[in-house]
């Protein structure tokens, strides 16, 4: 996100807030525009990726919807119309050869003109009452989204797909802005649908949930029921007099400071493959690791602050994603406060079901082993969400084993709780020591995250212990 992009989003949110009657419609249109505007790819992919995202969102909604209303049909037509127009605009602005654009224009024009009428067709769309059929569709959707994520994260797969479209495609990686977050929102909906927990919402609200513009680039991964409640919330009649807009602006200011001042400055001394390869001083390596840890936090939480701030201006409260993660006493608490919406997602949809599955196997007698396997598998998946590479697997394993070890140690030390609670000074000392130890465990873990190959990781870890 650039400063200009952020300014546009703030402006969009303010305009929507100033026109209460059309607020949600304006936010919805703004989200459609942002979906296309935020894509960094040029050419065919720049137009195709957001168009495909829209189709995916509509597809998921079709699976979970009960019975479309006339309003849904109108919005479907509008999505097709606006989406078609934005696709054509993306092609033109990205400098596609005029001949190709001209070929696309008549077809897209027909889509735009016909878009409003297409909504009528939804009456004939199948919406089987039989849950089993829908659940099969939902499963298919989940598998499809995981497949797309695999293509997005695996350079080899991505190159293969890209080479089908572009001559030099095999060597280029596609940047599908925001898809990691959109995919997890959609999967949450499909998974909840399969267990009968999903809230039925209108197409407009569902599209807005999936593609709410401040949350496209860096989350958070909201839950449908929470977001839907926000959409239905009564707002003060005088938006500019409300604290919410002011709080939003302050939050954006904090986010800008974190992202563009602190994170970007720390990036100059943060651990990178280049700095790691050329540094051997233990003190400097530690400094780089600390800088990387803080840079990552300020960068990511800064983005989320901006998203939350814009959401506040728009009258939608997005969930917190970071709550002082580096001041936590242990790794479990760290993961409760770092990228909260992602770790909650994995806890709900992978860790718990996977643990239940393991507990139904002969392994159930070895509870510690079940926890270890579930923790490591969950953390490896979180690692792979960041990128399909060995270093992310190692990072996930580091944290998985760390979480397991913390559980084992805290279980064994529980008997000491009373002893410590009677000695406040000792308790404070242990708290400070625990916070420092937890931070350093996480910071060393970032070495795996930041460096792409084993040699560099080994060189850096050895350097950190002065070897």
């Amino acid at each position, binding site marked *: 996100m650039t400063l200009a992009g952020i300014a546009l989003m703030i402006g969009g949110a303010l305009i929507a807030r100033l026109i209460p009657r059309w607020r949600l419609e304006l936010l919805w249109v703004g989200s459609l525009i942002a979906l296309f505007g935020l894509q960094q790819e040029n050419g065919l992919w720049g137009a195709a990726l957001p168009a495909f995202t829209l189709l995916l969102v509509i597809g998921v909604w079709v699976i979970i919807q009960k019975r479309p209303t006339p309003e849904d049909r109108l919005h479907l037509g509008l999505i097709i119309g606006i989406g078609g127009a934005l696709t054509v605009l993306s092609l033109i602005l990205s400098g596609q050869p005029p001949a190709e654009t001209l070929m696309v224009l008549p077809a897209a024009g027909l889509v735009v003109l016909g878009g409003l009428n297409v909504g009528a067709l939804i009456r004939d769309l199948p919406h089987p009452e039989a849950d089993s059929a829908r659940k099969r569709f939902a499963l298919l959707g989940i598998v499809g989204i995981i497949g797309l994520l695999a293509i997005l994260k695996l350079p080899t797969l991505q190159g293969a797909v890209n080479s089908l479209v572009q001559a030099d495609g095999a060597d280029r990686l596609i940047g599908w802005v925001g898809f990691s977050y959109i995919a997890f929102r959609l999967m949450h909906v499909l998974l909840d649908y399969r267990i009968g927990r999903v809230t039925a919402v209108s197409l407009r609200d569902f599209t807005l949930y999936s593609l709410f513009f401040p949350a496209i680039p860096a989350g958070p991964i909201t839950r449908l029921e929470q977001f839907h409640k926000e959409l239905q919330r009564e707002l003060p009649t005088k938006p500019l*007099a409300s604290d919410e807009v*002011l709080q939003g602006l302050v939050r954006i200011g904090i986010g800008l400071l974190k992202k563009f001042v602190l994170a970007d*400055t*720390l990036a*100059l001394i943060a651990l990178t493959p*280049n700095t790691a390869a*050329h*540094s051997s001083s233990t003190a400097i390596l530690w*400094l*780089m690791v600390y800088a990387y840890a803080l840079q990552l936090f300020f960068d990511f939480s800064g983005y989320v602050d901006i998203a939350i701030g814009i959401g506040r201006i728009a009258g939608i409260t997005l969930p917190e994603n970071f709550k002082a993660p580096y001041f936590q006493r242990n790794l479990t608490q760290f993961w409760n406060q770092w990228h909260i919406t992602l770790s909650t997602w994995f806890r709900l949809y992978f860790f718990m079901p996977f643990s239940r599955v393991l507990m139904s196997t002969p392994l159930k007698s070895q509870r510690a082993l079940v926890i270890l396997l579930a923790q490591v598998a969950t953390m490896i998946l979180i690692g792979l969400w960041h990128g399909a590479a060995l270093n992310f697997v190692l990072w996930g394993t580091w944290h998985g084993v760390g979480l397991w070890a913390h559980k084992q140690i805290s279980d064994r030390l529980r008997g000491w709780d009373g002893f410590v609670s009677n000695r406040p000074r000792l308790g404070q000392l242990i708290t400070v020591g625990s916070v420092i130890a937890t931070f350093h465990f996480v910071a060393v873990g970032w070495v795996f995250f930041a460096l792409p190959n084993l040699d560099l990781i080994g060189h850096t870890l050895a350097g950190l212990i002065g070897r």
Partner: protein
Amino acid sequence: MKNLSPLARIGIKAALLFALFNFLYVLIQPLDLLNQISIYNWLVPGRARLPFADYPESSFNLTLNSLDQMIVSHQIARPKAPDEYRVAHLGDSGVWGYLLKPDQTQAACLSDLKVHTPDGRVVRAYNLGYPKLTVVKDLLILRRALRYQPDLIIWSVSLASLYPGDQLDFTVIRAHYDEVKALIDQYGFNFPEWVQISPPTLWDRSFLGQRRAAADWLRHQMVGITWAATGIDHVMPVFVPPHPTNLLPDDNVLSVNPIQLRETRRFTPDDLALGVIAAGVAEAKALNVPIVIINEPIYRSPNHDLRYNTYYPKWAFDTYREAMVEAARVEGWFYRDLWDAVGSDQFTDTDFHLRAEANCAFAQQLRTALQEFWVSP
């Protein structure tokens, strides 16, 4: 004010405070003070050459506009050793060491020779070259180098660094408008470009106008840490394009008054910005610091009748050399013409950039020039 919404009240107060801050900023100009402060030579070692970067992220370096900040982050700003004979080496990218490591530059090679002065001190040369062909830039650097007790200055020049019409079109020089104006007023330089250069506006002096310079100051301190850790200040390309050999079949020279030169086909001292060198010599002389002026080596095409290289037709460079000799004689400068001191197979990508080995071989010629100067200044 009471009828306004909280948001409007806060907005107005913030705008007023920001305007006041900018007003005070314009008056105080805190960046001038900040640019005298650096973590270099304090928390991290001083840099071996002035900050300059084509690729800031990978070279742990960046291009600054403040010469004060450049010089305080340089090794020359550290205390002088008792037995040190401090030599500041001014010049262009050839002196800076483009495509070379910091320990392969002419200054580094000269220091490595461990030359002893007649009074037993050891020559320690400091690379104050900067990749731009203009002697005004050298004069500005020289004025700052004089703050750090140099015993002698080597000033490498070439014809292209002396074109009066090409002295000022350079961000670093424009960033020092007031100082350049004072020098022009004091020494009467005649630069055709000067009339086109606008003085800094109120906006340029405000915090908003100087936000980039302020951010650069901070970034420069931060990259000092990674630079100190890695020792890298310049990215070496994997592939260096070979020196151009297909010279144009003409004898034109760019950037100088072409009509007059086409008629006379001769450079005279008046066609060159020699007044800048004279000003540098005068400023150094006021502090008893002598200057050795060097006509730096250039690539010479072995098979072209009209040109030596892409920059210079033969008639232009030959008459320039004559003009330099004449000016040195009249002004009493210690001048050495080393234009052909390096073989043509020892150049890298341009007509001025030498290979590492050639740089060190050339440093021996600089040593000879110094020894000659000590015998007969």
